[in-house]
């Protein structure tokens, strides 16, 4: 895994909302095919950092390189224009906590909206692609349904298919199971596991510790706007060094951490 060239480099990312300094210089290097999970208490900056990776949030300072897309932020530097942002996001898929499906479109139309509108793919071709992706997430029979007819787990799987339809280099998952009923979490995690097995590069923000330990190559612990600890999943979750990480994990221990994990 470490031999693969990095597909994503984020360097010294700073982000403040007004006087609230949320990210105080966060760096991350992700190899192609790697799965990195970010954990941490709410307010630690992990979601903000994830949103900086497709520039839904623009950092005040720092650098970001994903594939051929390169951005630098800081004093005197001109921010990226809208065309550059759109080009970056074609290659970086994102799945949201609250799905954000387009309620006025069928499931299939949700999935093909990106390829048809952004990549000018022919509708027929896009529909084939869309049906393949829906089959992949186990929703082949829901192509013509509307999002309001689906369960939360189904909605989230459609959202994953919609992101995949752009054939992204990197996928970002922002607490994608947090809004789901507990019994629906597993079906979404299974889809993400399959993507990991396919070699998709992924960065996840999640509170599912057992899943993080199981699916990730590396886990990063964020606390108060910095990457407090990062390393192989088994080390970070089962042999934590940082006292704040120890305290954070203790709150999850009895519930979700498996006794042993094979990575």
């Amino acid at each position, binding site marked *: 895994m470490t031999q693969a060239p990095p597909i994503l480099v984020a360097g010294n990312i700073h982000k403040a909302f007004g006087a609230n300094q949320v990210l105080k210089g966060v760096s991350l290097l992700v190899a192609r095919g790697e799965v990195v999970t970010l954990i941490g208490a709410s307010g630690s900056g992990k979601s903000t950092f994830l949103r900086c990776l497709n520039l839904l949030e623009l950092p005040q300072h720092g650098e970001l390189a994903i594939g051929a897309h390169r951005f630098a932020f800081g004093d005197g530097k001109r921010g990226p224009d809208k065309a550059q942002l759109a*080009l970056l996001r074609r290659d970086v898929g994102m799945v*949201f906590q609250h799905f954000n499906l387009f309620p006025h479109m069928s499931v299939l139309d949700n999935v093909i909206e990106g390829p048809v509108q952004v990549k000018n793919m022919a509708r027929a071709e896009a529909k084939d692609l869309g049906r393949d992706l829906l089959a992949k997430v186990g929703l082949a029979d829901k192509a013509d349904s509307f999002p309001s007819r689906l369960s939360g787990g189904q909605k989230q799987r459609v*959202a994953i298919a919609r992101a995949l339809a752009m054939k992204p280099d990197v996928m970002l998952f922002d607490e994608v199971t947090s809004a789901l009923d507990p019994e629906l979490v597993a079906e979404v995690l299974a889809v993400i596991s399959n993507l990991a097995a396919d070699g998709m590069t992924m960065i996840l923000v999640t509170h599912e510790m057992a899943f993080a330990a199981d699916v990730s190559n590396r886990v990063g612990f964020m606390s108060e706007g910095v990457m407090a600890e990062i390393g192989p999943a088994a080390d970070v979750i089962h042999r934590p060094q940082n006292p704040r990480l120890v305290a954070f994990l203790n709150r999850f221990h009895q519930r979700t951490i498996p006794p042993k994990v094979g990575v």
Partner: protein
Amino acid sequence: MYVWDFTALKPYWGLIWHGLGITVLYTVITVLAGLAIGLAVGILRTAGPRWVSVPLRGYIEVFRCTPLLVQLVWVYYALPVLIGVDMSAATACFLTLSLYAGSFYAEIFRGGIEAIDRGQWEAGHAIGMREGRIFRRIILPQAIQVMVPSLINQTIMQLKNTSLVSTVAVGDLLYQGSVITAASYRPLEVYTTIAVLYFVVLFPLTLVADQLENRLGAHR
């Protein structure tokens, strides 16, 4: 006891139909112009820079907070003096009614656009779409769904408001009514007929509105 005699209106039906035509024509034109103004102003109010959105707010409040009759009279009598351009009654009516409708439609559009969850914009951005396309493809179709009842309401008001053009001698339905009343001395029959005609035009519109609302809301 008053004895109704609608046959007295018989010679005037041509005038009544003509008046109704003018009323519908003014409504259609000023609703379309008002929608165009409202959409543009509504978008600029939500997404435009401050030096655009603040004056537009001024426009909206001026037209919402003064009586339409006052606006109409002012545009017809005062504005030509100020700018030194003669304006026909028809032009003054068209201008005023369009701007008046536009100010209300603008607020409906703004409200509808702002009612759509920010996550919809983000989802559009996340698949590489740009603002304009997100607005057309994702936001506006949903916003219109939210706005339909208010838009229909405003359009119904607009048709009724056109009756004010009679005050500057534009020959709409109400104006013809006053002309016919003066000639026939049958005000009860005339104004009852006119009220019924307004109702007959507008009531089906409210039914269409209900239908549309149900259909648009089907996927919610």
